[in-house]
Each structure stands twice: as C-alpha cells, then as structure tokens.
C-alpha cells in the first residue's frame, strides 16, 4: 500500500489465543483539493458502489451467521469467511471515504486494491467463545457510539449491510438531516465548501475520517473479524495527526479517576450549575449587544466585556466537562482560569475583521450543525462513560478524549459567536493553542 500509513499485520501463532492487533484506518496524504464536478455529483457517482455493497452485504449476512456458528464451535472464524467479511468492511470504508468527501478518487469495486481511505485489518485469531456468543450485546455500546458518529454506518437493517452509504444518499441531498450524525454533518458542510472552493476543509475531513474509522472498528468487532473492542480515542486515529493552530483550545489535565458517588448523582449534582449557567447566559446575551457594537465599529472587542464573556465560555466548559464526565471534580461557579482540570484556553481581545463580525450570525450557522452532531456524540460518550466510571471508578480514556473534543469545538463555536475571536471553529480532533500574537506552539496540546 504505497503512500499509506501503517505496518503489515503480525503473523498469529497457530492454535493460541493472541491479543488481536487493532483495526487501523489508513489515510493517504491528501492535498485536500477536490474536483467541483465530482463533489457536486458525489452521491450519484457512488450509486454503482451502493448496488455492489448491497449485493455484497446480502452475502455477508449469510457469511456472518456461518462465521458465528463456526467461531462458537471451533473458537475461530474459518479463514475464507474471515477474509470475505474483512474485505467487505474495507469496501464499506473505502466507499464511505469517497462518499463523505474524505478522499477524492473514485474507489475500486470490492476493495480489490488499496485506496486513499483504507483499513488494515488483523489476520484471524482465536476468539473467546463467550464473547462470540454475546457479541451482539457486547457490541451495543460501540454500536450506539458509532450511530452518533457515523449514523447508518453502523446499522444493519433492511436485510442489507450497506454501510452508511444508503443513509447518506437518501438524506443529505434531500435536506433531511434527521440522523444528525457527525459524519453526515461534516460531509454536508464539506460538500458546500468543495463545490464553492474546490477544496475539502481539513477539520471536517479529519472529523469524518475519524468517524469512518471508528465505524470500521465496530463492523470488524461486530462481524467477528476481530475480538478486539473498538477504541473510540480520537487521538489514536490517524485523522488526529494534524494539529491545527487555533486561538481557542482546551487544556486537559484530567487523570481519568472518577468518584463513584459523584458519578452516580452527576446529572443532579450539575443542576445548580445548569441553573447558574442559564442565568449567566442571559447576562452574556445582554453583554453581547455592546460587545458586538464595540467590535464592529471599533474593530476590536471592548476589553472588559471580552473578559466577562471569556469567563462565561470558560465556565460553560467547566460545567459541561463535569456533566459529561470529561473531568471529575465539582467545578466552581466563577469559571476562574486555573481551577479545573479541563479548561478552555481563550485569546485576549485583538483586532477583528469587520466583515466577519458583521456577518457572524450567518457564518456561525454551519458550525452549529457540527456542534449539535458532536453534542450527540458527547451525550452517548457521557452515558457510556457513566456506566464505566460507576463500575470501575475510572473514565475510559477514549470516551474522555471524545468528550474533550466536543467541549473544545463547543468552546470554539461560543468564542466565535460571542466575538471573542474571528477564527472559524476547527472541527478536526486536535488543535494547538495559538493565541494571536504568540509564536507557534511546537507540539499539539495533550487533549488526551
């Protein structure tokens, strides 16, 4: 696979149950240029692949049933079935990569050659019969998260295993976004940018690539290709290799430890903060009026109001980090910097582009789409994390990092909407904090 990241899979030792290597997403270097023509017709161009996927999917249903019985009896999936199913997952991933504008070239049929968005799947290994028996139940949390990230991408309904392609083709271009998943939101916005500017925005592309990669891990686990449970950590995805410098970031010093009692009552414990945040929001809305006028006519935000609104964004981040279990301690009520392990980093008041300020209310609308999709992801991550933290006293790192990503994007959207910065929110998983005027940071912030 020339030009793709990753290394060849290790040879399994025959007859022994070994830890399966991860399902790895492989992303070829991407100049982000897109053809306006193929972007415009992207869903229609993918129709031949949908048909091929539907046929392949029908066959995979029977293959999975056979593989399940075989794995229950002999402790592993027969080699032929393993490769047949693994190839299907690769094919779904390639088509998703094309459909959701993560990659530009038209993908090969049936994954018969490498593609710009591809997978490295493990060779077959022995699998515990118990986990095979209960695979559907064990996979439910991952399927729920995958549904929020990649929507229909993880659904196996209607008698065909068609990946996310059908859900996208039937919804995105008819203006129906009821699924509200991250990959659909990113692809919808990337479609407009691709048609207008012949480029894919890096952040949206990386977010979609991560979602597709996670969905592929879920398929591989659910369809018995690997016994390894999907890892939701966005920082381990190749989509997180690019860290975008941005004036709004989130510093994360959380140690993953959670107090079970505060976890159990988390939603109720957050109530006083939610009430206080709602009251603070009213004042922030009022403060936005002089802040907007000052920024529009003076070209720069009034310092005091800027500081007040920055505190508001910081406090909201503290509260949401607590509510969604991205952090453990009960936060303070003032949003004071340096008091909480998960903290929004915000810029000082600087000169802003007046045109961007004037049209801010309109420009922010696309970001709301992504923030709502990431909000749904955060909800699922919080719900799953709640159970995990209640049982183990620790928050799974992947879910925590996913939540921090959502918090960071939300802080960027708020900062943009409240005129704290004129830099557009970045949807990709990782940013480095780069306040205006500061030298570029050498390395990505540890969000995980």
């Amino acid at each position: 696979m020339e030009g793709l990241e990753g290394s060849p899979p290790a040879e399994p030792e025959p007859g022994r149950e070994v830890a399966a290597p991860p399902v790895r997403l492989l992303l070829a270097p991407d100049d982000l240029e897109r053809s306006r023509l193929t972007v415009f017709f992207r869903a229609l161009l993918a129709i031949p692949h949908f048909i091929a996927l539907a046929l392949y999917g029908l066959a995979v249903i029977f293959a999975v049933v056979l593989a399940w019985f075989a794995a229950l009896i002999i402790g592993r999936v027969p080699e032929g079935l393993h490769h047949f199913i693994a190839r299907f997952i690769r094919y779904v991933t390639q088509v998703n990569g094309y459909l959701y504008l993560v990659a530009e070239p038209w993908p090969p049929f049936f994954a018969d050659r490498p593609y710009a968005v591809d997978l490295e799947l493990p060779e077959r290994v022995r699998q515990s019969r118990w986990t095979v028996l209960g695979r559907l139940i064990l996979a439910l949390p991952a399927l729920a998260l995958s549904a929020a990230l990649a929507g229909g991408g993880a659904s196996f309904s209607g008698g065909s295993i068609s990946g996310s392609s059908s859900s996208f083709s039937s919804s995105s271009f008819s203006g129906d976004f009821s699924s509200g998943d991250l990959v659909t939101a990113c692809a919808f916005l990337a479609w407009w940018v691709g048609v207008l500017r012949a480029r894919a925005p890096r952040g949206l592309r990386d977010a979609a690539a991560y979602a597709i990669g996670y969905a592929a891990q879920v398929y591989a686990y659910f369809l018995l290709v690997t016994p390894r449970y999907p890892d939701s950590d966005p920082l381990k995805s190749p989509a997180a290799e690019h860290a975008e410098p941005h004036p709004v970031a989130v510093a994360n010093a959380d140690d993953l430890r959670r107090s079970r009692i505060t976890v159990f009552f988390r939603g109720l414990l957050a109530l006083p903060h939610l009430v206080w945040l709602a009251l603070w929001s009213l004042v922030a809305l009022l403060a936005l009026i002089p802040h907007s006028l000052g920024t529009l006519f003076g070209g720069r935000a009034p310092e005091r109001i800027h500081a007040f609104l920055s505190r508001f964004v910081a406090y909201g981040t503290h509260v949401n980090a607590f509510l969604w279990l991205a952090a453990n301690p009960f936060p303070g009520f003032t949003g004071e910097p340096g008091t909480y392990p998960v903290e929004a980093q915000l810029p000082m008041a600087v000169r802003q582009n007046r045109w961007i300020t004037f049209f801010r209310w309109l420009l922010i609308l696309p970001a709301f789409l992504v923030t709502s999709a990431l909000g749904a992801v955060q909800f699922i991550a919080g719900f799953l994390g709640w159970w995990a933290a209640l049982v183990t006293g620790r928050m799974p790192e992947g879910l925590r990092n996913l939540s921090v990503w959502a918090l960071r994007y939300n802080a960027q959207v708020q900062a943009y909407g409240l005129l704290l910065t004129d830099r557009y929110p970045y949807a990709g998983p990782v940013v480095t904090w780069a306040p205006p005027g500061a030298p570029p940071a050498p390395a990505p912030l540890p969000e995980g």
Partner: protein
Amino acid sequence: MSARRVLLGVLGVALAAGWVLLLLWILRTTVPGDLGLPHLSAAGQFDPADLRRAREFSRVERLIALGGILALLGALWLYARRGAVLARESAAGRIGTGMLLGMLGLGLTWFAQIPFGVAELWWERRHHLARAGYLAYVIQDFLSLGGQFLFACFALLIVMALAGRLGSAWPFVGAPALVGVSALFALASPWLIPDQHPLRDPSLAATARRFAAQEGVGDAEVRVQYVKRQTTAPNAEAVGLGPGRRVILWDTLVDGFPRRQVRVVIGHELGHLAHRHLLKGIGLSALFLIPAAFLIELLTRRRGGLREPAAVPLALLVLALAQTLALPLTTTVSRRFETEADWSALRTTRDPAADRALFRGFTHRAYSDPTSPWWAHALFDDHPTGLTRIELADAWEARRP
C-alpha cells in the same frame, strides 16, 4: 463589653421575644377552649372489619416509617463521620464544596431510604392504594432529588456566605433568611403542582365559591389534581399565600366520594386558608429553624462552623436529629391546625352527618386508623384521629344553635 457583643445580646433578646410572640400567635385557635369532646368508642363508630384492616395496615406503615427515620439518621451519622473526605472531589472553593457535600448527603439519605419507600409502595399496592410501578417510583423519586439539591444549594449558599461574613453570628440573619426562602416557596407552590384542572361539576364549583366567600377568602380557587394513575387514596390540600392561594382536591376524592362529603373537605381546606394556617406553618418552621441554626453552629464549631465545608455533613445530621426530636411538637401544632379547619368546615357546611361519614369513609377506603397508639400519634399523626374528628362533629352538633 464590646459593641458587637451588646448588639448580639440585643438581637438575642429580640429573637427570644419574637419566638414567644410567634408561638402564641401560632397556637391561637377559634375552636372553643371549653369544648368538651364526648368520649366515643371506635368500635361503636366504625365497622369492625374496617377497623381491623385499618389497624393492620397502619401497623406496618408505622414500622416502615420508623425504619426510614432510623435509616436516615444512620446514613447521616456515617456521613457526618466520613463525608468530609468527599471535599477532595470538588474544585469549587469554600461554598461550592459545601454545596457538593450538602447534595451528596441528600443523595446518601436517598439511598438509605429508598428500600423503605419501595416497601411502603409494596404495602400500599397490596392494599390497592397505590398504582405506581416500582421502577417508575424509584426513577420519579430519584428525579425529585433534583429539586431538593437545588434547594439545599440555595440554603447552603445563604448560610455559608453569611457564616463567612458574620462568623458564629450567622444564625441571627441566616435563620430568618431561610424562613424567607420557605415563604417564597409557599408563595410559588400553587403553580408547581402538576396536572391541575378547574372543578368541572358546576354545582360543586358554585358551593366552593359560596363557602370561600363565607370564610372571607373569596379569591381562593378550588381546583382538582389528576392523581388516579398513581394512587386510589383520597386527599386534598390548601396551598399558596396571597393571590395564588387555592384548594387542591385529588380526583380520587372528587370522583369517589358523595358530593356532601366533598363539600366537607372543601370547607375544611378553605378553613386552612381562612385561618392562615400556611402562614402559621411558616412561622412554625421559623420557631424550629432559629434554635436549630444556633444548635448547628454550636455543634459544628469544632469543625470550623458552617464557614467550612467540612462541617456540612455534621450540620445535616444535627438538622435531621433536631427535626426528628421536634416531631412531637410539630405534629401537635399541626393537629391543632387541622382541628380548627374541621371546626371551620362544620360551621360552613352545617352538616355533621356528612363529616362523620367522610371520616368513616377514610377508614374504609384509605385504611386510616381512627385510633393510634400514643407513640405513633406523637410522632406521625399530623391530623387528629378519625375518632377524634367524629367526636368533634358530635361536640359541634351539641352546641348547634
């Protein structure tokens, strides 16, 4: 003697005088002082089968209630000993940490009491008094903690902020402030009760309006609350202060009892409004809160008083203990209010026969024990027993002009 001490002394005397005056005002009643109640026997007034069922039912209910109180105190005792370590789970500063500890204390008491709540539900379901499912009950009970958490946070915000500024003198301002909060809550309560609708029976609505005018509370509305999905037990309440005050009748009462008996209930609840029992109830809470606040301050002093969040778990225990110890006093005052409301209903309806039938009906349908043992009467009975209420009806009839 410093000026501060003099000021505190004057405040203390003023509070003590206010306390006595308030108690006198609360204890005032329109029930004639020379009213001698006839001594009736329960066996002569109630159906023997009803009496037996009600006693059996109440015996278990009382045991569950006692168990709940003991579990509550036990959980708070443990929390008072160990709870302060949970301060490490907070990054919220002094008051915020106090709020967290307060909420967690309430959460633990919920844990301790939920088995008794479920047992009570089981017992009531067994007697066809409750209809709620177990899971629905637990979830609803859990969610209702949200309101308690908010109230606790608000109260701790006031108390801890005052303790930070005034030190050990915070009860002088804190206790009246908390009474003010409970008055605000009483003011808002008519709008917080769900599933209300107007009284649909035109003749009953007309009677209610006439009674309200007679009692001098013509602005008070009578409404019906839909509760049939949760319970079959009949009930009613008077809520609110000032313009929003109203009488709420449960639909189980309106639809399940004869009109004459519903009229008695309306008269009784309007009696509460006419005699300002809600306001007096707030006064009663002030009577309780003021000494309780001083007691809390005294007993938490070793932990730094309520300036320090570490004192909050102990403060919760002291408050719960004080509340438990005050039960005989509060139930006595409550029974006095209820007796006055009963008297008021008799005067308004002039229908003692309906009054007697109503209380017999409560025993028949809701297993209300017309004769409680003395300890249960002292701890749990916030209404007179059914037998006493029938005796009151007889006494009123005997005095009827």
